[in-house]
């Protein structure tokens, strides 16, 4: 059998290739999860454990800024931190392909070059949507609720997925940049202080001044602040500029991250050919 595939020159069939190839790559990631359901389970167990741990173990000692129920304060935090920690999954998957030479095979094929990363981004976003849906269910089970209408709640979910989308590009960039498993481990450790230095579990107002300022400016806090407001959950207090403009910041931060890391990812991918 000899099949000759003609490579399109014109933009519209090229775009069609980019879209179908991206979807094929997305399907590949979905097939991975179907083959390794335990990875899906552990991926879900982690945020659920955090939820249980902070709610039942530390919850008694926590105070909510401005008063209110700690559950209502915590659950959006778990949403946000889960979206953020997704950066590790993206990075590990991208790195594994590059290390095993699979990326090299893709690059030697007449497929759309953008599809390898675009497929990864779409797959991770779909997975995050599933995780978020399950976390919402878990949140409702432990007594969390939104109090400002479904429309606002949906906006909040959209902001959370936007945050995840932004960190997908960070993950792709780091996955291509970091050569070794040791590098991966380093990044996996560094995500913790990044998450802790936010308003996920405690309020920046309770931190020392300079630390609180960093925590307030953390992109994670921006999304979180905005979602707490949109859910009508407590904790969306504070008089600083960042907290006053939380929804704006929850848009600006992810867009800024994408503006930086999308071109960096493209450049790192191209640099594979240097």
């Amino acid at each position, binding site marked *: *059998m*000899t*099949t*000759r*595939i*003609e*490579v399109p020159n014109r933009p519209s069939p090229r775009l069609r*290739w980019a879209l*179908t*190839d991206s979807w*094929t*790559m997305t*399907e*590949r990631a979905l*097939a*991975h999860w179907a*083959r*390794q359901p335990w990875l899906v389970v552990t991926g879900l167990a982690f945020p659920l454990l955090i939820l249980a741990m902070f709610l039942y173990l530390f919850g008694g000692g926590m105070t909510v800024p401005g008063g209110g129920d700690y559950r209502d304060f915590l659950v959006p935090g778990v949403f946000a931190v889960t979206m953020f920690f997704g950066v590790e999954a993206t990075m590990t998957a991208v790195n594994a392909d590059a290390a*095993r*030479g*699979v990326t*090299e*095979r*893709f*690059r*030697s*094929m*007449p*497929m759309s070059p953008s*599809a390898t990363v675009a497929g990864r981004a779409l797959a991770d976003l779909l997975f995050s949507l599933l995780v978020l849906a399950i976390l919402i269910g878990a949140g409702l089970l432990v007594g969390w609720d939104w109090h400002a209408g479904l429309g606002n709640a949906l906006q909040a979910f959209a902001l959370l997925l936007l945050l995840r989308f932004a960190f997908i590009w960070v993950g792709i960039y780091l996955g291509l940049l970091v050569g070794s498993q040791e590098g991966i481990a380093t990044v996996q450790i560094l995500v913790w202080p990044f998450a802790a230095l936010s308003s996920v579990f405690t309020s920046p107002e309770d931190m020392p001044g300079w630390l609180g300022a960093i925590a307030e400016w953390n992109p994670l806090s921006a999304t979180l602040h905005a979602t707490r407001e949109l859910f009508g959950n407590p904790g969306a207090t504070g008089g600083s500029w960042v907290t006053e403009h939380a929804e704006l910041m929850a848009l600006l931060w992810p867009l800024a991250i994408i503006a930086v890391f999308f071109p960096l990812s493209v450049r790192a991918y191209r640099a*594979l*050919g*240097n």
Partner: protein
Amino acid sequence: MNSTGLAVEALGLRKRYGEKEALAGIDLRVPWGSVRGLLGPNGAGKTTTVQALTTLRRFDAGSATVAGFDVRREPARVRARIGLVGQSAAVDEVLGGAQNLALFGRLYHLDRATARRRADELLEQFGLADAGRKPVGTYSGGMRRRLDLAASLILAPPVLFLDEPTTGLDPRGRNEVWQSIRELAAAGTTVLLTTQYLEEADQLCDQISLIDEGRVIAEGSPGELKARLDRDYIAVVVRDADSVSAAAEIVGRLAVAIPEIDAERRVITAPVRNSVGGLTDVVRALGDARIEAEDIALRRPTLDEVFLHLTGNERSIEEVAA
């Protein structure tokens, strides 16, 4: 297809990584339907050459045409006409063999049904049909390499690149891969493979390009290359270990280079210019000195010896590779 009638043509390929010049002007002309071996030690520039020709790596200077298309100007058209098997088996470990081939088929823009049918055909062809559903992570090294080879043949490309296709395989896996390469070549596929195994180049290739320090230092069929070393080798096995040095002295007097001595196996090897005459001289001289020989043989040089001779290096290819 190609006005020059060549499947692969490279002219003066240069590539520099910082201080190191990986390619120092590689020239290659590979006719359609032939099997070409790039033979050389680790770091000679074999892999970089393959990566440059398969559009994976930019080169600094020179030009390259593969399957009739300029590698730099029309990389996508080149990619549609080549298959590449890299050094590490580049297949998805999590997915099954059939899933892998169907995935790559889809990425080659076959429709779903054709991709699946082609996957089954290739699994059958490479003796992987029974393992098709199992995850590739459970495959042996030879199976994985065959799947990798199958994945690069989805479009039945006219030009196939193989970068050290048998490195890391046991003898059985190596034979399986060799057999597949022979079948492809017999069916008319142009093959360019790199290897650091002389035997592999000898077994598979019509033409060999010896590569050292980013340059092609010699080219020809295995027989021609061996003939370039205008001498045969004489090997003497003496009966008595005590007479090894005396025998070596005699052989050394008649040979054109200092003999190599393997004291443990009592073997003395040296190149001689006039092969039959050299053999008689050695036999006579050993008899005069009353040194008893267990065996005396004349043989053609190995590719390793050709390589050493041409590079003027004391190291052998496989020593450097080890």
